[in-house]
């Protein structure tokens, strides 16, 4: 794959606060990359620097080998979709979509045919004469997407475009965005704080925290092999167990008094040392399981019925584990106060670094 966008040693400070701290990233042509992180992690600032709305304090941004760091936003040939739709209220849908083409000096016929093509692409043919206020939020955001891609930009930036929409439309629209991106093959940078959104539509995810890149990888890798404690905790739900090393000789740890044998202990561990173990809610089973080599005893504290999934909070003593089990219509879920066995495969345990 050819490299399309390169971000090198990018730093952005606002006064004494540095919000982006020497970030290095590289994106391939046609890739859908998501910047994921909590509020204030610097993801939107990076996107805005790529768009040209913020000037980096230092570092460079190159697109196809050309340095665009100091290029004005209207010279970058980049399309962008905003969280607040940002459709021009005084223009109808047709004029909104054709705005970029008009600025580029395209002929009236070309604008008309491209607008129609875009409206077909977003599933709103015949909506040219409608005004933004006559449309729902989801429809407005689709028009905003069409407006962004109508002038055939080299790259598409999506700044939390689904945040203002309700849950159902958010899911359907993100799938539409991904389908359109695949169809056009346009390199796309997507910013979100919603990990499910990031994991479901991205080729690669960049997890950010406090201005730093924590991990870059494919969604499967980010979820299953988190590189840092932050990634493990931010992406998906994670149980953290504070255990104590019982014996380094036979790799055992004590979890609230229950002795558990691990496949390995971290280097430098010694008897009595505290150790943090993490595991996802879905890797634990209530009851027995043939491939599980660890069994813990606990008491059900809460059982939350979420439809297809039942989330159980099971107390081991001081430690409380959240466990997801599929809803089985034939079996009643464990009730509060039930004593249960929890089965875990030791390979599913993550021993986190810092």
């Amino acid at each position, binding site marked *: 794959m050819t490299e399309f966008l390169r971000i090198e040693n990018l730093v952005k400070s606002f006064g004494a606060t540095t919000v982006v701290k020497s970030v290095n990233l590289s994106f391939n042509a046609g890739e859908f990359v998501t910047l994921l992180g909590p509020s204030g992690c610097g993801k939107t600032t990076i996107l805005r620097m790529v768009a040209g709305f913020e000037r980096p304090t230092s570092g460079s941004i190159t697109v196809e080998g050309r340095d665009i760091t100091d290029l004005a936003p209207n010279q970058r040939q980049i399309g962008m979709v*905003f969280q*607040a739709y*940002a459709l021009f209220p005084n223009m109808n849908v047709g004029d909104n979509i054709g705005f970029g083409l008009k600025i580029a000096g395209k002929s009236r016929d070309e604008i008309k045919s491209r607008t129609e093509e875009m409206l077909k692409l977003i599933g709103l043919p015949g909506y040219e004469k409608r*005004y933004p*206020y006559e449309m729902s*939020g989801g429809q407005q955001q689709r028009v905003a997407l069409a407006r962004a891609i109508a002038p055939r930009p080299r790259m598409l930036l999506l700044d939390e475009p689904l945040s203002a929409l309700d849950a159902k439309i958010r899911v359907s629209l993100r799938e539409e965005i991904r389908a359109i991106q695949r169809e056009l093959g346009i390199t796309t940078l997507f910013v979100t704080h919603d990990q499910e959104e990031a994991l479901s539509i991205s080729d690669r995810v960049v997890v950010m925290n406090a201005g730093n890149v924590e991990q870059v990888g494919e969604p499967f890798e980010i979820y299953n092999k988190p590189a840092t404690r932050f990634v493990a905790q931010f992406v998906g739900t994670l149980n953290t167990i504070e255990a104590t090393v019982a014996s380094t000789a036979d790799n055992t740890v004590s979890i609230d008094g229950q002795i558990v044998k691990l496949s390995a202990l971290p280097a430098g561990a010694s008897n009595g040392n505290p150790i943090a173990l993490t595991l996802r809610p879905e890797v634990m089973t209530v009851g027995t399981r043939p491939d599980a080599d660890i069994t813990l005893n606990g008491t059900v504290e809460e059982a939350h019925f979420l439809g297809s999934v039942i989330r159980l909070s099971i107390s081991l003593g001081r430690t409380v584990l959240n466990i997801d089990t599929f809803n089985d219509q034939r079996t009643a879920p464990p009730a509060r106060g039930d004593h249960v066995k929890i089965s875990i495969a030791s390979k599913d345990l993550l021993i986190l670094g810092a």
Partner: protein
Amino acid sequence: MKRSKLWAWITFGVAVAYFLVPLLATFEFSLRIRRGTYSLDAYASVFSDPRFQATFGYSLLVGLFAIIVGIFIVVPAAYFVRLRAPHLRPLIEFVTLLPLIIPPIILVFGYIRLYNTSSILPLTGSTFGTDILLVLAYVALALPYMYRAVDTGLRTIDVQTLTEAATILGANQMVILARVIFPNIIVAVLSGAFLTLAIVIGEFTIASLLNRPAFGPYLQNVGANRAFEPAALAVISFVITWGAMGMIQLLSRFAPKTAALTD
């Protein structure tokens, strides 16, 4: 009827009477030019007076130019303050309020002193120059109203996001102002324009001291020399001002709507 409600109506009635009785009295007086009968002769006399037409036309024209110049100054200024220098807003608001604090008499003497025939820019040396000075004086006089109207209009739209959306699509600042920002605050701008017109039409001090044939000095002149016509002119002035206010209300219905339908 509840006691509190009764007092509310009494207060309202007193306020309405305070406002309407002098107006009705003026109107009634304006109809009494003929002894023993009501007639519109005073109005006919005013409308047929060539000085009325000339001065009213002149003030209208000066008002129009004041509006155009005001729009060209205020809209970009308010837009850039909102977009790039929001911290300067209190300062700008203070500056725009100055014409309300400084009496027009001070303003016009300042102008005469600054732009007299022996100054670098001798605007008062010619009729055309004085007309320009009058227009600029009215721009300053209407600044508090025009700025506030435009600023209120800008508050109703997401200036920054709309600007960024247009910029990323290739537009420059001029195009953004003309095609995106201005059409979305046109109603607010027109409100400011009608307020400007209402001020300009009746303004006396500046026009009189600059010796221009405006409607304000004409009103004063007629008031000093006639009996019934000034009453008719006062009513006409009120109708013009109310007409301007009514236009503001009417135009607000055509403001571009920004909200989305609920899903």
